[in-house]
């Protein structure tokens, strides 16, 4: 069974098509990144998961439950942290979490609530009114609210937008722990290094269409070639290596590297000319470069 399954899912708002026909699935245990520029349809897709938006076409399933025909089971299986900072100003942090548990049919959820509060650094704020919290603290409560029912699938829509470094670290530590315990995590973010560090699979959306879906390593190996930077003594490059040269700064040469096998050819050519390597660094294109390339393709 897949954690999430989108099957030809589309959504129109009047004449505007927010999602064309998106099909993909998220496996159980994945740490999955959903990337794309603003307006690509990420939040629409997440809203369809949570039943906040109804798809114009296609089927969506969470842990095998259809979000429309079997909505109660589907909603029990997923915890969503919305992108907008929203809270109920009438209640304290603990009350908000107790109510949220009740909505999911859970009474006496105090032990788990205490554990979430502790893990998100909220224990001291448990009895503070939501209005009195800073933006970052409110964001933590939103994460807590999505976790009260221990959902097998956790969806975070830009959870770290406008959040300080400390919360990001606490949050990701906790989420990674939940992931190792078997929870499936879906994440949207504009901080691509977060996706690169945390996720094992990456999907990219552009103008309502899925343009890529791959394992992180495959995606990182894609498109832009690797480069190797060499510090050479003497500072000359053999004739046969000249076509590979991208940049030279004094004795530092940056060469194109199609794949790792190409390195052996470079090294033997240098040996043949008695050129010594003083320093060597191989750089991989990062997710950000690939993202920009794909979005402009």
């Amino acid at each position, binding site marked *: 069974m897949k954690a999430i399954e989108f099957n030809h899912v589309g959504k129109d708002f009047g004449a505007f098509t927010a999602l064309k026909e998106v099909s993909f699935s998220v496996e159980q245990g994945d740490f999955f990144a959903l990337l794309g520029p603003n307006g690509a349809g990420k939040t629409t897709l997440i809203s369809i998961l*949570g039943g*906040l938006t109804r798809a114009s076409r296609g089927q969506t399933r969470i842990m095998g439950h259809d979000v429309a025909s079997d909505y109660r089971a589907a909603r029990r299986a997923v915890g969503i942290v919305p992108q907008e900072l929203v809270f109920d100003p009438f209640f304290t942090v603990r009350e908000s979490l107790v109510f949220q548990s009740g909505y999911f049919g859970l009474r006496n959820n105090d032990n788990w609530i205490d554990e979430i509060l502790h893990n998100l650094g909220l224990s001291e704020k448990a009895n503070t009114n939501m209005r009195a919290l800073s933006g970052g603290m409110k964001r933590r409560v939103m994460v807590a609210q999505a976790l009260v029912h221990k959902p097998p699938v956790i969806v975070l829509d830009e959870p770290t937008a406008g959040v300080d470094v400390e919360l990001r670290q606490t949050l990701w530590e906790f989420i990674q722990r939940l992931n190792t315990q078997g929870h499936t995590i879906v994440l949207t973010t504009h901080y691509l290094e977060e996706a690169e560090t945390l996720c094992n699979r990456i999907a990219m959306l552009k103008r309502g269409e899925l343009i890529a879906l791959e394992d992180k390593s495959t995606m990182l190996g894609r498109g832009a070639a690797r480069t190797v930077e060499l510090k050479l003594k003497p500072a000359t490059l053999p004739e046969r290596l000249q076509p590979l040269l991208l940049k030279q700064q004094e004795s530092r040469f940056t060469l194109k590297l199609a794949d790792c096998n190409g390195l052996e050819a470079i090294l033997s050519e240098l040996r043949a000319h008695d050129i010594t390597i003083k320093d060597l660094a191989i750089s991989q294109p990062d997710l950000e470069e690939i993202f920009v390339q794909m979005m402009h393709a």
Partner: protein
Amino acid sequence: MTGFYTLFYKEILRFWRVAFQTVAAPVLTALLYLLIFAHVLEAHVEPYPGVRYTAFLIPGLMMMSMLQNAFANSSSSLIQSKITGNIVYVLLPPISHFEFFAAYTLAGAARGIVVGLGVLLATLFFAVPPFAYPAWVVVFAILGCSLMAMLGLIAGIWAEKFDQLAAFQNFLIMPLTFLSGVFYSIHSLPPFWQAVSHLNPVFYMIDGFRYGFFGVADVSPWQSLAVVGFTLAILTVITLTLIKSGYKIRR
């Protein structure tokens, strides 16, 4: 059931936390109406033989306050949640359409009834209406408040801005409640306005409620019950259909 119970309890707590504004204020307003109208009209009007105007006015004011507050509770709660966005916390959980409907309706009705009791307690000092048929009092209080709470739900679902809700309140709810015989027996009206009053469901809520106190009214309590019950049934169907369809709430 836990979902329903939690949402109901939260809605009760929401108005109870600000009871000064949601309960005490309408009680004071009703008291002011009583002081002024009773002072001006007590000597001139005897709505039913042997019934003092002040006593006559009390059930009317009670019902008016109850209906307005039942409406205000569900409508303002929903529109606030919609505008601040925290309605997502009710939409994401597996709460069924019926639980959603029942929780908002009953919490609105509960606020109406609490306000009604407050008005009764505050006005007892001026006149004690006889409780001729308490069962009718209870029946019309519950049905009337539930009906208005549903209307509040519909208005809260439909309105996208506070001024749309205010328009609903000022141009529909206020005229319906004021022109329903709160301050007078409709028998004192010219025939045309009597006929118009008979088209207003709120008239039957107040008339039936008043029958419970005095044992006399403008129409039979059974006729009032039939009208109120029928209106309630229609509104139940409309409200449930709206919630189920996700109209303006799930886009």
